[in-house]
């Protein structure tokens, strides 16, 4: 599905987008407006109207994808068109602007559009790349089992550390009670936890193990092995969370920016006719 929306119907929507771009560029080159090219010429209004229509259609994708089997177009049509027509806006809307930018609500609408497209492009990249990496990272086991494995290892650690000194046991307790997966947005996206209690326990217990002898040394070595395995599993889980976050994060830009864009676009259109 992820690559197929790009080749969907033998690149139908790519062809449509390219055709629109070619027509727009040709018209822009041929058109010789009074003064500098701008959004207020007949071509400017035409390109602007086209862009507004495309933007509204693209935004409607958010509604359409929640309704199943409505209309003639498949959801794949919408998704494929969403990608290609969205990218085509970068060129068509720029031609609409006549390359005139300023500090005003009109350029705000343009900037928001670029940000929406940029976040969407990242989303496309994420959908192309991360699901595959995520399944490679997961390996054969489902993630739920891995969580259970980690919990089991916490219990094993208690068992092993039971007769070890309190300094070790306290680390094991911390590794159980203080180990966190994910957390804030940045922590989820980073896929790491620099303050991971399990990693700290592993490192410290490894040091302590060298000092112990006899039974304690054996137990400590066993503990290190279990903790190491636990940390490895935690790393994989965090990586998985990272991929999931990367697959989701762009929508936190794409959707609010789209809402903001629709507002700015409406104000843009309203005000150019208010101050005609």
């Amino acid at each position: 599905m992820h690559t197929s929306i790009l080749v969907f119907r033998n690149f139908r929507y790519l062809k449509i987008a390219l055709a629109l771009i070619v027509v727009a560029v040709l018209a822009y080159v041929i058109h010789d407006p009074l003064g500098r090219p701008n959004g207020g010429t007949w071509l400017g209004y035409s390109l602007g109207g086209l862009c507004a229509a495309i933007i509204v259609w693209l935004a409607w994708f958010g509604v359409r994808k929640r309704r199943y089997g409505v209309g003639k177009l498949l959801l794949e049509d919408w998704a494929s068109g969403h990608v290609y027509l969205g990218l085509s806006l970068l060129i068509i809307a720029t031609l609409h602007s006549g390359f005139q930018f300023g500090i005003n609500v009109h350029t705000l609408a343009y900037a928001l559009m670029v940000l929406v497209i940029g976040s969407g492009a990242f989303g496309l990249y994420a959908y192309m790349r991360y699901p595959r990496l995520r399944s490679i990272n997961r390996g054969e086991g489902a993630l739920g089992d891995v969580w259970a494995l980690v919990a089991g290892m916490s219990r094993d650690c208690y068992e092993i550390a039971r007769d070890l000194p309190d300094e070790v046991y306290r680390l094991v307790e911390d590794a159980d009670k203080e180990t966190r997966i994910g957390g804030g947005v940045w922590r989820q996206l980073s896929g790491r936890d620099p303050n991971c209690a399990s990693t700290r326990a592993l490192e410290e217990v490894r040091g302590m193990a060298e000092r112990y002898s006899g039974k304690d040394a054996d137990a400590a070595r066993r503990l290190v092995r279990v903790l190491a395995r636990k940390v490895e599993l935690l790393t994989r889980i965090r990586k998985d969370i990272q991929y999931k976050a990367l697959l989701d994060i762009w929508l936190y830009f794409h959707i609010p920016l789209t809402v903001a864009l629709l507002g700015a676009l409406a104000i843009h259109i309203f005000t150019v006719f208010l101050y005609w």
Partner: protein
Amino acid sequence: MEVLVRYLTKKRDGAIATRDALVTCETVRFGRSTDNEVELPAPGVLLHEGVLHKRAGGLFFEGEGEGRNNVTIDGQPIASGPVKIGSTIGVGPYDVIVLLPQGEAEIALSVELVRPVGDALTTLRNNSVTRLEQSAIGKRSLGWGALAVIVLAFLIWPLIETYGIGGGDAALSKNPIEMALETKTWPIAADLAWVTGPVSGPHKFFAQNCSFCHERPFVRVQDSVCTACHAEINFHVDPKVHDLPEVTTALCQSCHKEHQGAAPITRQDQTFCSSCHQDIERVAGDTKLRDVTSFGTDHPEFNPTVVVDAAAKTFARVRLDKANWPTENSNLTFTHKKHLNPQGILVPGKQQRRVMDCADCHTTDGGGTGYSPVVMEDHCSDCHLLNFEPTAPTRRLPHGSVEDVTNSLREFYGDLALRGGADVEDAPAVVRRRPGGRSLSQEERLEALAWADKAARDAGARVFSRSACGTCHEVTRTGDGPFDYAVAPVLVVDRWLPKGRFDHSQHSSPGCVDCHAAPDSAKATDVLLPQIETCQACHGGEAAVQRVPSTCVSCHDFHLDFHPPMRERVRNARVEDG
């Protein structure tokens, strides 16, 4: 001693399972590890938490090391203290209750995990946040928030500021110039966020005041706004004569595009003009204008305005043609060739030659665009002295009318004759006598005046001929009387091409004579205007590659001051509306 330790475990169904352990020991150690008599293997319990002693006075629990903080006795957070039957020693999640000993056991204890320690999986899950929607602000909230900020900042507030607080009747009652010059900045003047591009330079002084031009919402900027300041702007063609709506009824702003930044707000494009002027008869059948498309390649030869008859003040436009060159009939007698003689021209009275150049007579006007008229007193009189009496070389005639000159001559000789002392050869004695002394007799007076009259007539004959007036002017006899002369009126056009603009100050690098063939001009009637090919050597049309690109408006005005003012259209429109 024997100690009974009874481990109680709560099953899922609520029933309690027991496991008894009978240990032999001196003291009863409590702790996590297997070497304790009371094993408490849950998280939160130290290796060794404390020891229960049997003393003379009874049982005593003694906490160990750091474990003190982990222990309560009968609910009190004390690490050590006496205990009795029924006492509860809390260690971490466990409660150890001292039971009444039975059988061989001297001490009996029950151990129960009463405080939950938490399942490892549950703990891990509770510690973890693995979905963005759990930690980030919701996408909808972000979207609505951003939308609210944008709508408030860029729509609601500007609307309130423009049409509520700062607009309406309050704005209308202001003086337009005051209103224009009012300093406004965003965000107070919030509608500045709606600006579609920088205002052109000349209009920048009211650029912060949108409603100066945008008077009514959803109505295009009206011509009345423009003509309020540009009152002297005239039509390109007379609308009563030519029905050309594209230039007579189109709004000012259909040509003058504002908000285009530093670009000129006037139309510069050649095609705007050539769209009509390439086939001008199509739009103006009775015109004398010729077709034109581009200055560089397709522009008619210059058609200067020249004087036909200076006395009648008649002019004609005569096209430059080598075979039939127009003449400027100014009634002056003058040649550039003589004045620009490279060997110089003799300066009267000084016996030396002076080499003249153009600037000796042609001085630029204030702005340097054109030239001031040549004035006899300023530019000619250094050489053309207008003296008339050799014995009084400093005495000059006025550069005025025949009558002024006549009066001046009569007055000079009359005064000389009556005063005496004239050093004139053929004068009578009375005129030559020493001045002063006795008064003249009637006969002497008549003789002196007779001489003065003759002397004035002789001098008049000299000056009106080629020696003075006639040098430059055409002088004719009008009768037989001594002073019956007429000087033909002089008229010179100030601009040969009044419909074109030419800035001499911008053309100072070629010399004057590179364009104006003055050194070879031997007649005053020569029109020393260069032909268009001289201009075209440097200037091309709009699309010129190796010439200075010059469009129509480089030389020509669109709004022509001999047509009616455009503000009349505004006034008429108002009358029609009203």
